[in-house]
């Protein structure tokens, strides 16, 4: 075969491998690949019967198939039994606990007789490193959240209005982030706040339809970039064209808590702190750049500062 000739079978294989790549179980991945490959063959066959070339039929079938990156995530979600986060966290925790246990007995056996305190001087920092400072991370998040709420309350007090907190800032840290992080009532108005924190301005935040689709950390050297999952690096799902999307897409869709669905007077705020330099919203083929004050899925995008300013300005 001529090297430049369009090999439809190879292209189908490539397409199918990409689309099914997010399915973790090899058996399920192969079954899904076979099924989609069959589908392509059927679609191409029926198109060629109408006089279309195989290459054109393949291209048309690809368009009809839909956005491959989105399908990839959907297939991963519908086929992967365990949430990857849960699975990875469990394995990691067990491995860390086992390692900590071994190290403790080894160090105690070696140096305990020399100095009992020495064990703890070595052991406690070791454990902190092993467990990735996770409790400290939660503590930091809780503190920042409480600080923000205190700021809001102070502001409300200055303006003789009252803020009533409807959600528990501590418990909401551990909940899946598909609902708002802070829910409060101020002057009869219900305010739902979704918090998204990004430490670097160089991160690029991309929204697709109604979902936070991907976060890309731009590489400082030229056009190369490193893709990162918005939540956890290890749970990423590779997509052919759009970098990496999270396999927990649903967790990032922005919906209201069930108990508030009946409320009519709801103001939805998304606080992105700090708003990455490149925040885009992709719908169909259109790409819009999002700035502070813009509205995304009914949520107004703000930074902490600009949100506090709007409250000040309104009252």
């Amino acid at each position, binding site marked *: 075969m001529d090297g430049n000739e369009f090999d439809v079978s190879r292209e189908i294989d490539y397409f199918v491998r990409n*689309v099914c790549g997010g399915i973790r179980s090899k058996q399920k991945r192969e*079954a899904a690949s076979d*099924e989609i490959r069959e*589908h392509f*063959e059927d*679609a191409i066959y029926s198109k060629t019967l109408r006089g279309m070339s195989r290459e054109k039929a393949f291209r048309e079938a690809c368009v*009809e198939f839909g956005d*491959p990156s989105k399908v990839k995530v*959907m297939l991963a979600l*519908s086929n992967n039994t365990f949430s990857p986060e849960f699975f990875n966290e469990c394995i990691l925790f067990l491995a860390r606990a086992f390692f900590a246990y071994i190290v403790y007995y080894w160090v105690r056996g070696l140096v305990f007789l020399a100095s009992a305190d020495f064990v703890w001087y070595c052991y406690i920092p070791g454990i902190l490193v092993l467990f990735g400072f996770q409790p400290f991370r939660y503590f930091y998040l809780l503190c920042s959240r409480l600080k923000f709420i205190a700021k809001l309350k102070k502001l409300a007090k200055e303006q003789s209005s009252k803020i009533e907190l409807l959600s528990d800032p501590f418990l909401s840290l551990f909940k899946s982030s598909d609902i708002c992080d802070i829910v409060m009532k101020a002057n009869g108005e219900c305010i739902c706040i979704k918090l998204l924190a990004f430490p670097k301005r160089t991160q690029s935040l991309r929204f697709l339809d109604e979902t936070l689709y991907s976060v890309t950390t731009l590489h400082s050297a030229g056009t190369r970039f490193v893709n990162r999952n918005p939540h956890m690096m290890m749970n990423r799902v590779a997509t052919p064209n759009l970098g990496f999307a999270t396999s927990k897409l649903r967790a990032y869709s922005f919906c209201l808590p069930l108990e508030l669905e009946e409320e009519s007077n709801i103001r939805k705020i998304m606080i992105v702190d700090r708003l990455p330099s490149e925040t885009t919203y992709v719908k169909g083929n259109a790409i819009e750049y999002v700035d502070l004050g813009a509205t995304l899925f009914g949520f107004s995008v703000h930074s902490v500062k600009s949100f506090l300013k709007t409250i000040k300005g309104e009252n």
Partner: protein
Amino acid sequence: MKISKELLKGTTGLVVLSVISEGDMYGYQITQTVKARSDSALVLNEGTLYPILHSFEKNGYLTSYKDGAEGGRERKYYKITAAGKLFLQTHLEEWSYFTSVVNKVLAGEN
């Protein structure tokens, strides 16, 4: 007339399950049946179809088996289960109630 995505949301699963309830089918066959029955008004995107089929299978509403078709190629057929029939029945009732209510509102009846 093209039907908007918002209106289609949530009904795709119902359509797919209802088509399969009439006889075992494979993916491509489902898309073609839906297309033909709706006079091309409902075009099931394949990328939407397979995740739905797989999640229905995971939830026990569908089972699948492999079978060779006329062309000799082996295809994955989907078959509705008892749980799937129950699910379909519940959702069909819900759907007919919903459409009657919406029609009432649109017609301006009390």
